[in-house]
């Protein structure tokens, strides 16, 4: 888990700072194609990290996270395009609306555990998908909402990237403090041993609903950014195949690490772009990668690297026993 000893903690901030500087300077050196792609990666990293609050930290397997992403996107699209609100109103409303739905859905879902939790979250998300798909007057039905207006300041691709990056970093910081707060540690305690945490006086269902709501809110922010960046919102954003993506990124990068899902988002988009120029069969490759991953590398990329690093460290220290 993130955290640990003091020196690791400090070097963690050092690395994070370097990463932010790198991400800020990087658009100066690459073509527009990479800037557009990076904007998508940044937003997907936010989505995946928000999902990992409940998946990695809370131990809850939700298959309906796309619902909150989609609700955020529609909140942005409808408020700015149909009601003429400024972009910031949309971006603030997105998490509020997503969180409101997440609270209600989470409250019902927490009545069930494990597999049935996954099923119920999927059912709720599909219900919202069908409503968005059919409510033509309000959501544009299967056409979605095209032409989400962007403020002048976000006209260029680079400014879009910087805006998405800034919002994402802000959200990541908040999420980092949440997972390292007493609340975050209680959530891990519930994941590890629900009964013991109940004995300690933790109201596990309440904590889980709150975590679900927070995750929904940040997914809503990601959705709002996505609508702004793509200039559209369509029902596909709420579909269950979209819900699979943050699960996949968390697994790909490693769910037991704060930055794992972000690494997963980078790997996911990079892989997709590499494959798509060579073949039409991107889903096939994705399927094979996913299958290999769950069969061979359940810790994800970051988990794998961390484990190898631990082995190396113990070897250089002359330790005979691997942890």
């Amino acid at each position, binding site marked *: 888990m993130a955290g640990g000893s003091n020196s690791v903690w400090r070097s963690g901030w050092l690395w994070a700072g370097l990463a932010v500087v790198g991400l800020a300077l990087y658009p100066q050196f690459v073509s527009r194609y990479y800037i557009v792609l990076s904007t998508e990666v940044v937003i997907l990293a936010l989505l995946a990290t928000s999902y990992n609050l409940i998946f990695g930290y809370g131990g809850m397997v939700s298959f309906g996270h796309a619902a909150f992403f989609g609700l955020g996107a529609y909140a942005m699209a409808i408020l700015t395009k149909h009601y003429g609100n400024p972009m910031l109103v949309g971006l603030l409303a997105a998490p509020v609306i997503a969180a409101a739905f997440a609270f209600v859905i989470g409250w019902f879902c927490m009545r069930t555990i494990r*597999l049935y939790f996954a099923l*119920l979250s999927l059912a709720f998300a599909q*219900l919202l998908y*069908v409503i968005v798909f*059919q409510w033509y007057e309000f959501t544009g039905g299967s056409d979605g909402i095209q032409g989400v207006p962007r403020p002048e300041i976000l006209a260029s691709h680079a400014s879009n990237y910087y805006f998405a990056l800034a919002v994402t970093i802000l959200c990541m910081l908040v999420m980092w403090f949440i997972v390292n707060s007493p609340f975050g540690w209680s959530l891990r305690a519930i994941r590890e041993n629900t009964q013991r945490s109940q004995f300690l006086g933790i109201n596990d269902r309440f904590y889980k609903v709150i975590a679900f709501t927070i995750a929904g809110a940040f997914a809503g922010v990601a959705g709002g950014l996505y609508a702004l960046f793509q200039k559209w919102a369509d029902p596909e954003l709420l579909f269950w195949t979209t819900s699979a993506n943050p699960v996949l990124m968390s697994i790909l990068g490693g769910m037991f690490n704060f930055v794992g899902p972000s690494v997963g988002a980078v790997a996911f988009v990079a892989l997709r772009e590499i494959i798509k120029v060579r073949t039409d*069969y991107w889903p*096939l490759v994705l*399927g094979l990668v996913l*299958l290999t991953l769950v069969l061979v590398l359940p810790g994800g990329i970051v988990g794998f690297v961390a484990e190898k690093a631990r082995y190396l460290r113990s070897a250089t220290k002359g330790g005979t026993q691997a942890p």
Partner: protein
Amino acid sequence: MTWDIGTVILLIMAGLTRASILFIVAAGLTLVFGVLRVINMAHGSLYMIGAFVAASVIQGVGGAGSFWLALVAAPLAVGLVGAVIEFGVLRRIYQAEHVVQLLATYALILIFDDLVKMIWGAEYKSVSAPAALAGSLSIGGRPFPVYNLFVIAWALILAAALWLLIYRTGLGRLIRAAVEDSEMLEALGVNIPRIFSSVFIIGAFLAGLGGVLVAPLGSIGLGMDVSILIEAFVVAVIGGLGSFPGALLGAGIIGMMFSFGITIAPRMAMAFVFLAMVIVLIIRPWGLFGEPER
């Protein structure tokens, strides 16, 4: 639309046709879950493969007997694919967490979707019902296709056959014991991996059978895997995962909701279906006939 008795009977018959296909597919899904405790997300892909194999056999062989050949060949072919999945993938992850199983079978959806596209192309295909079952009968003064009656009859025969398999055969006894406590059964010297394989192959066979039977009812194309998966999933969950009577009841409910819903409020039908699932899951998370998760 006038609501005379003929219309109502016709809607019920249409609902039963839909319910029959749903039951056959959901029965496989629920059987596999009951014994293996795995939700096979690729179940819809197996159904789609069944339909495409059937289309190839019917169009390739041609003639009067081709449909009957497809009715035998396609489920067997899909059963074989099921054997490969069980052996290559599922066998390694029975002990893993649900999310690993869900993701592995989700990966199979993506893989099969593209494989079907590679083999059969992205165009829609259609086949017609065999000549013996072509025409229609008059029910309540309205024409009703004979083929639909054939599908309903098949579902009823299959329900009876499954009941016999589970409650009147040696394999069925072992399956019921495996549902109760597979570890104990293994300790008694029963070859559990073989039972798991048999059950998964039977489940795949049922998906394939559903695919053949649905082929003459509509067009065969990519995407039918996901739509049937979601519907069969709703049926199995409403009835209770692992329960055959539940799948039968769930299929009936959803079939009727489709046929009446699409007539009364076409845009709301699908939303009502999911709403029904949400309500059942909230009140009885393990479904109408299921048992709470252990």
